[in-house]
């Protein structure tokens, strides 16, 4: 048995309106990011699995995505194999520039 790690990205189909993305876009504009044209919000699901082979592992994850992780009526998904374990700590987030916070405070969001 070997251990594999996959990432499943679930997105609303392009033809479907994304109210959540619209709300984030609105906030981005309030923050002063006037050049941003579109934001769509999806989901990232990291999965660790033990299987004999990578292709068996991939098959199982794709079946799971079809049955549970994505709703085919409104969503598409993509499965990709990750080379590093998701348990590796994420790098420190970059410091936000001062100006962004100022915009945030004055907008009263």
């Amino acid at each position, binding site marked *: 048995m070997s251990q594999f790690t996959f990432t499943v990205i679930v997105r*609303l189909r392009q033809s*479907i*309106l*994304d*109210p*959540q993305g*619209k*709300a984030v876009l609105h906030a981005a504009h309030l923050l002063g990011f006037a050049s941003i044209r579109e934001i769509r919000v999806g*989901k990232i699901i990291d999965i660790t699995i033990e299987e004999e082979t990578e292709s068996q592992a991939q098959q199982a994850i794709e079946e799971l995505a079809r049955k*549970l*992780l994505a*709703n085919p*009526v*409104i969503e598409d998904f993509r499965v990709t194999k990750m080379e590093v374990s998701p348990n590796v700590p994420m790098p420190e987030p970059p410091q936000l520039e001062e100006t962004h916070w100022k915009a945030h405070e004055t907008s009263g969001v």
Partner: protein
Amino acid sequence: MNKPSFGVVVFPGSNCDHDAYYVLRHIFEKSVRYVWHKETDISDIDVIILPGGFSYGDYLRSGAIARFSPVMREVVRHAQKGKLVLGICNGFQILLEANLLPGAMLRNASMRFVCKSVTIRVDNAKTPFTSMCREGDVLEIPTAHGEGNYYADNDTLQQLLDDNQIVFRYSTTNGDVVDEANPNGSCLNIAGVINKKRNVLGMMPHPERASESLLGYEDGKKIFESIINYFN
């Protein structure tokens, strides 16, 4: 005696289960019991109600995880036998995820959680759930949801229209189905749909919150009266 017997499914996170139980037991004086989501025998029940709430915290998608609860296998069998299933709000979302009804729910187009009384027009009164209404009747019933924006592709919508499966549509108090009366962006103002066999209904508004004059509304009673009448 006391037929039909009702069962109200309780998922972790259901929060309208007691309201439904209360209305059936204390207003209609019917036999009703809670059905824990891990139960695997519901053969004693004539009508299964999937109540509103936030099963599994709405994680992943509303209804997506509840749909795989052990009891859902029995609910599907119950439906296949032609017995009645009523899904309210989160219950409707679960029925969609379980493919017992066509379509899916998106977040409300308004980007807001909608918690207010709405008016819905009865578009099909020839179902076990609406027989005490007349076609065109307008019911005032409270609604409370963040993901009630009913979506289906055009082919599916056409099929729903052709087969008269749209039971309720958001409308004005006069019964006009217009955009202004649509609280969440649902395709065709759909507030409730039924399956082809006419035994599984899903609806976003809460009839169990509109069944006692003390609470200000009684229009929801017509749904339960219709169900009870179906067994007489």
